């Protein structure tokens, strides 16, 4: 138990901050994912074939390729791509991107593909009459989306979004390969210096279980809140 003590003698505080880092990366990635989903969902639902193709390409590729490969692409390719853009503007120094940004970008793009599918399914299951009624009342497309479709869509999407959240939370463990100190990386460091990998990896598993358990409880509340009146 003294291995988990806070302060200089134990790994308690380090693991605590690592847990906060995992939460921070997951939340950031989830929001980046929403951002991508907001772009690609309309593309997938669009009437134009070419826009459909772009949307389908994104979700198919990201969902068909291992997460680890995407992370490696960002890890090794990220700074190169930024430096290429910078060189166009006449800046040739070496640029290193923060591991937090690369990691949450990579996980965010992955979670975005899953969120896109969830949003698409939710919008498609809204009754067609709702769209027609909005049109008849002369409500413009923007208000229609934000005031009529989105609130109804959220109710349908929350159970599936909770799955996306769980996937995203577990995917953050893969960022440890880039050196960002989250739960997995911290356990790796602790296991290496104390030669007690069994204890630290089991503790990491418990931390992840706790995170998934707590988030399940919160999501269940949201689900109740958004399904009022049904």
């Amino acid at each position, binding site marked *: 138990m003294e291995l988990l003590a806070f302060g200089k003698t134990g790994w308690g505080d380090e693991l605590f901050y690592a847990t906060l880092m995992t939460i921070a990366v997951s939340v950031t990635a989830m929001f980046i994912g929403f951002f991508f989903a907001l772009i690609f969902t309309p593309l997938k639902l669009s009437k134009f074939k070419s826009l459909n193709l772009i949307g389908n390409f994104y979700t*198919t*590729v990201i*969902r*068909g*390729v*291992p*997460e*680890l*490969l995407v992370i*490696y*692409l960002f890890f*090794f*390719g990220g700074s*190169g791509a930024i430096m290429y853009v910078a060189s166009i503007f006449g800046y040739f120094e070496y640029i290193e991107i923060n591991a937090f940004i690369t990691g949450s970008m990579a996980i965010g793009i992955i979670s975005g593909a899953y969120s896109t599918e969830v949003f698409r399914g939710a919008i498609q299951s809204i009754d067609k009459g709702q769209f027609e009624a909005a049109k008849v009342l002369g409500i413009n497309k923007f208000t229609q989306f934000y005031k009529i479709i989105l609130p109804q869509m959220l109710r349908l999407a929350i159970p599936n979004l909770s799955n996306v959240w769980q996937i995203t939370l*577990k*995917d953050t*463990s*893969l960022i*440890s*390969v880039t050196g960002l100190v989250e739960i*997995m990386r911290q*356990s*790796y460091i602790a*296991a290496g210096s104390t*030669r*007690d*990998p*069994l204890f630290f*990896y*089991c503790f*990491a*598993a418990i931390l*992840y*279980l706790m995170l*998934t*358990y707590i988030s399940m409880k919160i999501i269940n509340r949201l689900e109740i809140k958004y399904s009022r009146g049904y």
Partner: protein
Amino acid sequence: MDFDLMFTSFPKLLGATVVTLKLLSASLFFGLIIGLFFAILRLNKNIFINKFSYGYSYLFRGTPLLVQIFIIYFGLGQIEYLRATFLWVILKEPYWCAIIAFTLNTGAYTSEILRSAFQTIKPGIIEAGKSLGIPSKIIFYKIQIPIAIRQSLPAYGNEIILMMKGTSLASTVTLMDLTGVAKYIISTTFKPIEVFIVAGGIYLFMTFIIHNVIKFLEKKYSFNS
């Protein structure tokens, strides 16, 4: 774009795909057996057996696959007792550790898929079997299991694809699978985009094949035909 690199790395990556496929097929095979076993336990009325099965699937679905591999590969070797038994022959090999971790992981997901398939079977079907005087064991093997397999095909297809992506984690325990070789080529040539296109293309091709095979099976065993 370095097309030369893409051409030269393609055979290397294709060779590594064999490792990925081996890992995938072994873990799916053992995972299906474990999944079926735990799904049957889950339907048991005894609360302890039921809770035990639920605990197993909760544990493996609530933690990342990476943690599970690390516990088995790095963690279990720490136990002195284990190193004395014959199990050590298996546990010292990263290949078998990866297969054990993948099996237990996919087994947990498969047990959930099969459980929900068993539970959606209409009681009328079982009652019809009973009223025809068929013994309950035969009802289970000849009626419930085939229907459950058909019901769970779409979800199981997704699980196969998820597991295929999961095998990429074998590269973290020194195995040279498709992702492992891709990472090696990237870190020696610093051309991530080219390698990503080739390796990602191979993964997508496998996804495409699995997707279509499952679709074919779904059509073949659909209730309407």
